[in-house]
């Protein structure tokens, strides 16, 4: 699986934004992952601690928001969720469908801590 390189990308994006925001520390990272994107969040979590160890993101907690895989039937307009396997429209049996959601994979936001600005 390619979760190692994916985890490295997450670290590099998060670190870049943290530096821009002059963060002292990154505490939380919020990821959005669609069910159809071939990412296994357990293995991202597994690599995270190794990858982030010597960085500003060390110890940050990963949060995964999972977006369901939704298909819309183009014949009868019925919208349905795919959980295990891809299936034709459960209402009319049609194969003429479009993917509505589930392919997302992005870094939504981070939570950081900053040094309090001291009063002169």
């Amino acid at each position, binding site marked *: 699986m390619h979760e190692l390189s*994916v985890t490295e*990308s997450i670290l590099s*994006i998060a670190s870049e934004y943290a530096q821009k925001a002059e963060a002292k520390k990154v505490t939380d990272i919020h990821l959005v992952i669609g069910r159809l994107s071939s990412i296994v969040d357990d293995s991202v979590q597994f690599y995270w601690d190794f990858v982030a160890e010597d960085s500003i993101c060390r110890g940050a907690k990963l949060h995964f928001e999972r977006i369901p895989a939704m*298909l819309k039937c183009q014949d009868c307009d019925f919208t349905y969720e795919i959980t295990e396997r*891809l299936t034709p429209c459960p209402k009319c049996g049609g194969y003429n469908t479009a993917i509505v959601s589930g*392919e997302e994979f992005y870094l939504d936001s981070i939570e950081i801590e900053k040094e309090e600005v001291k009063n002169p």
Partner: protein
Amino acid sequence: MSAIRVPIVEKIFDANDQIAHQNKQLMAQNHVYAINIMASPGAGKTSFILQTIKHLQSEFKIGVIEGDTAAVTIDADKVAAAGMPAVQINTGGECHLDASMISNALPQLPLDELDLVIVENVGNLICPAAFDLGTTINLLVASVPEGDDKPYKYPNIYRGLNVLVINKTDLKPYVQFDMDYFTRGVQLLNPGLTTFPVSCRTGEGIAPWIEWLKAEILASRQG
């Protein structure tokens, strides 16, 4: 200390996609048409590349980027034996090629002399789908013995495809493969996908693919 939320909304694959875009530009500048060939191990990627080279080498100059880890140098040797420049990428056990590997390999090919670059991706149905390489098209070699339920099991890879090749049609009499069920699954994911059923063993079905590709290469030069 104060806690602050920093909004980002950046695609995780952005860095890869940017390098892919540079690859695409580099190849466009050199008028090179490029194909990313994906498949599970043993589906027939190398056989399909060799067939394609055989039919096109009198008219086009072709380079190959070999990323298949299964048989490290053998495949590149076979291709070199066919008289075409080939670069072997050492993926270091990675399960896919990414855009930066291609970006390192491209300068090793005489791009200004080439018409076509064929990339043999690592044999895998999951990971290569996520990494755009910047090729003109993405092509999957599926094969009859793998079974007709692959689109239902590995929906991801079918999404970004421009061309689907169904190889080993000569084995249809020997294995259970419902072509209708297979293509309906593909239809769910990628309606109207250009598809070529072929046998790299007998050569059946190769001709329509070659005609299609020739027309594509010529059209891309005008465009």
